[in-house]
């Protein structure tokens, strides 16, 4: 009794996380319900969600009741302590690195960086665009290739993107051979194989000097340095590849590239790799930024986002995303790739790592690493170990009889060496490998020396001094000769005072969740709570190498198993894989699983994937990558999937039907009442239902895809489950499947994961971006099932409030049951184009003057805005948004009534910068006050866009995606 009462006391509202996460007080909730005409929240939800899918949700024992922030943190801390911290010198694409404290504190841990969205609204994103431009400059300088993108998901998928690009540009009908260096990273090879098979590409693994070239070869991948550490001069191999018309991709190590001749000078076509060792913690495999650079000729085939330079309305230099027509949101099933969310925050961190160290500092780090490698070789020879004759960068591999002993002694001293052969156990080891990194010191080296001496029963002897000049450490390897990274930004910020001011100068240009609501539809820009983010900086999570022995990662295993269980429960499915690094990768994995299931049942001919025209661009792009043929399904006038068309196509393709991809609630923001019927139609014709779970924020705790007919769904932990968007990544796109598909969940060559008939890995690391899983774990733990249900309900309450307030001014395009929308709504602005010449873009830009980030522009319907407020916004903020939209509507009306000029009006001229409105001359038809302070409350709190309207066409016609070196700046 007493206990129960006390329990009530301790979980009083103020200590509950729920009331911190949800923006509306219970009083405000009541007010909204009253405005909408409902007596209580349950009544409201029963009117939004179709009754045949509303789920009673049994309580879940293992997803305990919600708990406080401190309890959850304590809980997670003890889980973290089950991860054993050892010094991992395993390498294989993951290295120890020091995240400079100034970067950790002012970028990684600063919401002004991590809560930003992808910089589609360039005028209010100049800060991260500049940081990404620095990233592209860095990549371009490292690789010697002129065109670099703003990150990809990981090294392995970047290699797969290079393979796909080569395949599509070579365009020779019989060229299906892709030759891969046998010294490739094992996880890269597996991902290449996963991605090659559905496209009909044949991956062949050989030593490059035995490559069999003929005109069926369309591409070649060389790993430089190789997984064994080996470096060699690839010039000859490149010549031979080009002779048969094949493109050459090199997977490179950015730290080695600091010293080596840029691969672009050796005329490679594409360079890819991971920037992890530039200051990004290993995090048990991710998230890390991969890079992709290529020649000018392939810029239109390049996957991923590119930041390009352009000019604004005043002629100032300004940055924005360039050449967007390459991307899936425009080109759909003809896109060069399905990538959408990438790794922006990590790219920003690694670009700042280069700003922090400058070219000289980077060179010292790289030099120190090879110095230790050379010293280790010398020590091994002295001890009598046998070394193969090759030149290496940071890694030494040794085959020896006493390998097991070496590993055991190393373990005793707190080290993990690479076990050879890769993937075998310490007991079966026939050798060891050691990969040095930035963190290695003389002291650490002495310990390693001692281990190696002891294992071979020799005494430790001091090494003689040796020649540590680069030329002698790298005999026969082309080295970097010319000065590089001469751009001012990599030189002026070595003092922390300057650096921190630069970081702040950039971040204050950006509009993020710290400035105000970001009501982007389909993006779920909810609170990213500090308590959720704290644990990602804990060493117990951040410093683990993904390939440590299993008994060292028990904490991660617990985290993974908790999340798999909880997410399976919430979606109503039997199994979950956390491996996919983004929603796009979840889609790809899910479709491959469906494909594998059909194949297993002997129905390989099933290759048609039905996709509604309203689907997100990643859907058709992923389907093509998974080897499917896309057939479009129309939508009806209410925005629902047209069931007649679905039935018709299902019948037409009955024997070939593989899957339907459907988004629920639909991308049109409504709960279609016939979703069960749609699933049934597809099942009746032998197909599987793939549900795009991007809109799960309307469902968690209320209904479950696995229970109303879907077979597979992906989730975006970076939408519904609080991982911040980071300005365009990181993300996690877990895939959840029904029991008959569990055997096919993705596996990994170096880890126990996936089903017993697993499809190949879709990410480099077994658990993808494991390092940020603590964020979603904290959220779920603190909310509990009840809290999650509350969150979904409030998200829909807020969306309906906005729809209700704005409908008289901007018609809400689609409504579901009882005239209600789901967790987002589409505002139709097309009449304003006709009557006042106002484009949806003009309104998006004008919102900046009112201190808002625009909703989603022209997607999924051109000429509309899609608004998603989430559950985290307060009534004050919702009203501020509605007031701004209504005020803008009045400005448009003035144009319609000819009271305002068609061109010289505050919308067409938006956004207005501080510099514009304070200029000495002002010759516009409206006042400065109307320009910058159209509503009085803006005088108290004003966000200033950094630049005026950006000219997109200019930038796309003249692509500039990296900063010219200093000399060029001076010349101008």
């Amino acid at each position, binding site marked *: 009794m007493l206990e129960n009462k006390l329990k009530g006391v301790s979980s009083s509202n103020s200590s509950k996380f729920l009331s911190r996460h949800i923006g509306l007080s219970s009083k405000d909730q009541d007010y909204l319900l009253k405005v909408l005409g409902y007596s209580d929240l349950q009544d409201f939800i029963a009117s939004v969600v179709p009754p045949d899918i509303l789920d009673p949700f049994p309580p879940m024992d293992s997803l305990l009741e919600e708990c406080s922030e401190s309890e959850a943190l304590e809980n997670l801390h003890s889980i973290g302590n089950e991860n054993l911290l050892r010094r991992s010198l395993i390498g294989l694409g993951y290295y120890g690195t020091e995240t400079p404290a100034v970067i950790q504190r002012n970028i990684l841990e600063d919401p002004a960086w991590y809560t930003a969205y992808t910089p589609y609204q360039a005028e209010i994103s100049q800060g991260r665009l500049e940081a990404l431009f620095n990233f592209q400059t860095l990549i371009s300088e490292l690789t010697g290739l002129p065109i670099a993108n703003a990150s990809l998901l990981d090294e392995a998928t970047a290699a797969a993107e290079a393979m796909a690009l080569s395949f599509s540009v070579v365009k020779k009908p019989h060229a299906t051979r892709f030759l891969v260096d046998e010294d490739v990273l094992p996880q890269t090879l597996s991902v290449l194989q996963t991605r090659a098979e559905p496209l009909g590409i044949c991956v062949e693994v050989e030593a490059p000097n035995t490559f069999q070239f003929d005109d069926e070869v369309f591409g070649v991948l060389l790993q430089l340095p190789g997984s064994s550490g080996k470096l060699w001069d690839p010039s000859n191999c490149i010549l031979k590849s080009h002779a048969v018309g094949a493109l050459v991709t090199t997977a490179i190590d950015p730290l080695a590239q600091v010293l080596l001749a840029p691969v672009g000078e050796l005329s490679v076509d594409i360079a890819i790799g991971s920037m992890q060792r530039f200051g990004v913690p290993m995090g048990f495999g991710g998230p890390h930024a991969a890079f992709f650079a290529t020649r000018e000729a392939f810029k239109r085939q390049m996957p991923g986002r590119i930041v390009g330079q352009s000019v604004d309305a005043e002629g100032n230099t300004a940055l924005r995303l360039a050449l967007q027509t390459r991307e899936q949101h425009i080109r759909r099933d003809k896109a060069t790739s399905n990538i959408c969310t990438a790794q922006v925050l990590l790219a920003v961190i690694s670009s700042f790592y280069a700003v922090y160290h400058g070219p000289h500092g980077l060179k010292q780090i790289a030099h120190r690493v090879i110095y230790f490698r050379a010293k280790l070789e010398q020590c091994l020879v002295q001890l009598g170990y046998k070394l193969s004759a090759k030149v290496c960068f940071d890694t030494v591999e040794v085959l020896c009889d006493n390998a097991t002993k070496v590993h055991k002694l190393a373990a005793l001293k707190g080290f993990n060496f690479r076990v050879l052969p890769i993937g075998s156990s310490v007991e079966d080891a026939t050798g060891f490998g050691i990969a040095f990194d930035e963190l290695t010191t003389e002291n650490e080296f002495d310990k390693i020396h001692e281990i190696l001496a002891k294992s071979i029963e020799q005494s430790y002897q001091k090494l003689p001094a040796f020649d540590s000049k680069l030329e002698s450490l790298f005999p026969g390897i082309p080295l970097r000769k010319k000065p590089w990274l001469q751009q001012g930004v990599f030189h002026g910020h070595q003092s922390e005072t300057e650096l921190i001011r630069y970081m702040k100068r950039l971040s204050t240009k950006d509009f993020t969740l710290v400035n105000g609501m970001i009501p982007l539809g389909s993006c779920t820009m909810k609170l990213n709570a500090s308590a959720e983010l704290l644990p990602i900086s804990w060493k117990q999570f951040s410093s683990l190498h993904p390939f440590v022995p299993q008994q060292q990662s028990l904490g991660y295993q617990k985290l993974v198993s908790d999340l798999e269980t909880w997410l399976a429960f919430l979606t109503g499915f039997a199994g979950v894989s956390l491996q996919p690094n983004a929603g796009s990768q979840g889609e790809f994995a899910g479709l491959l699983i469906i494909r594998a299931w059909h194949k297993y049942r002997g129905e390989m001919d099933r290759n048609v994937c039905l996709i509604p025209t309203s689907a997100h661009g990643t859907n058709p792009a992923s389907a093509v990558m998974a080897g499917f043929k896309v057939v479009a399904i129309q939508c009806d006038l209410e925005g629902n999937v047209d069931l007649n068309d679905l039935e018709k196509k299902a019948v037409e393709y009955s024997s070939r039907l593989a899957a339907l991809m459907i988004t629920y609630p639909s991308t049109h923001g409504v709960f279609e009442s016939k979703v069960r019927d749609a699933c049934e139609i597809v099942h009746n014709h032998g197909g599987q239902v793939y549900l795009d779970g991007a809109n799960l924020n309307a469902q968690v705790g209320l209904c479950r895809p696995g229970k109303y007919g879907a077979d597979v769904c992906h989730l975006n932990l970076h939408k519904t489950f609080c991982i911040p968007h980071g300005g365009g990544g990181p993300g996690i796109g877990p895939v959840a499947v029904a029991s008959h598909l569990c055997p096919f969940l993705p596996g990994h060559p170096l880890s126990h994961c996936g089903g017993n008939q697993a499809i190949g890995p879709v990410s480099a690391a077994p658990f993808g971006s494991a390092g940020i899983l603590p964020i979603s774990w904290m959220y779920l733990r603190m909310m509990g099932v009840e809290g999650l249900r509350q969150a979904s309900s409030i998200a829909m309450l807020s969306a309906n409030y906005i729809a209700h307030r704005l409908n008289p001014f901007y018609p809400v395009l689609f409504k579901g049951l009882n005239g209600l929308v789901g967790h987002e709504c589409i505002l139709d602005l097309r009449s304003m184009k006709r009557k006042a010449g106002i484009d949806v873009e003009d309104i998006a830009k004008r919102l900046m003057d009112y201190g808002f980030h625009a909703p989603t522009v022209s997607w999924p319907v051109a000429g509309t805005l899609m608004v998603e407020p989430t559950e985290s916004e307060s009534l004050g903020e919702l009203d501020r948004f509605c007031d701004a939209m209504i005020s803008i509507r009045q400005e448009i009306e003035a144009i319609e009534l000819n009271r305002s000029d068609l061109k010289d009006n505050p919308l067409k001229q938006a956004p207005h910068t501080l510099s514009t409105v304070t200029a000495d001359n002002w010759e516009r038809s409206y006042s400065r006050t109307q320009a910058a302070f159209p509503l009085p409350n803006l005088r108290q709190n004003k966000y200033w866009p950094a630049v005026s309207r950006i000219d*997109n*066409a200019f930038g*796309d016609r003249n692509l500039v995606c990296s900063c010219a070196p200093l000399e060029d700046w001076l010349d101008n």
Partner: protein
Amino acid sequence: MDFNFPANFRFADSHEYAVLEDDCVRIGISAFAVDQLGDIVFVDLPEVGTALTRGSSFGSVESVKAVEDMFSPLTGEVVERNESVLASPEALQNNPHEGGWLLRVKPNDASQLNDLMDSETYSSKVAAT
């Protein structure tokens, strides 16, 4: 909006125009299509000598926001392409019916032109959208 479609032009449903000049047909895209696309930033055209088939794609045009395939209004062989449009796509933007033409094609059968819409029909079709 008035697009001024020249009277001697013929138009396809997919907004390409064709006009017979001497024994060659000049091909481009209509001012209406250009207006719909917005700022054009890139044009992709086939090499001289390429054989075109009526109704199949011969290239693409990209604006900042969209990319569209272009379809050949008739069967024939490319004898010339407008290099100035390739070099600066603004030329297409500024004057789609004249300086912004795309290809000159030697038709296999010039009478295929008769299957296309005349300027008046096209004009009223466009006005209705």
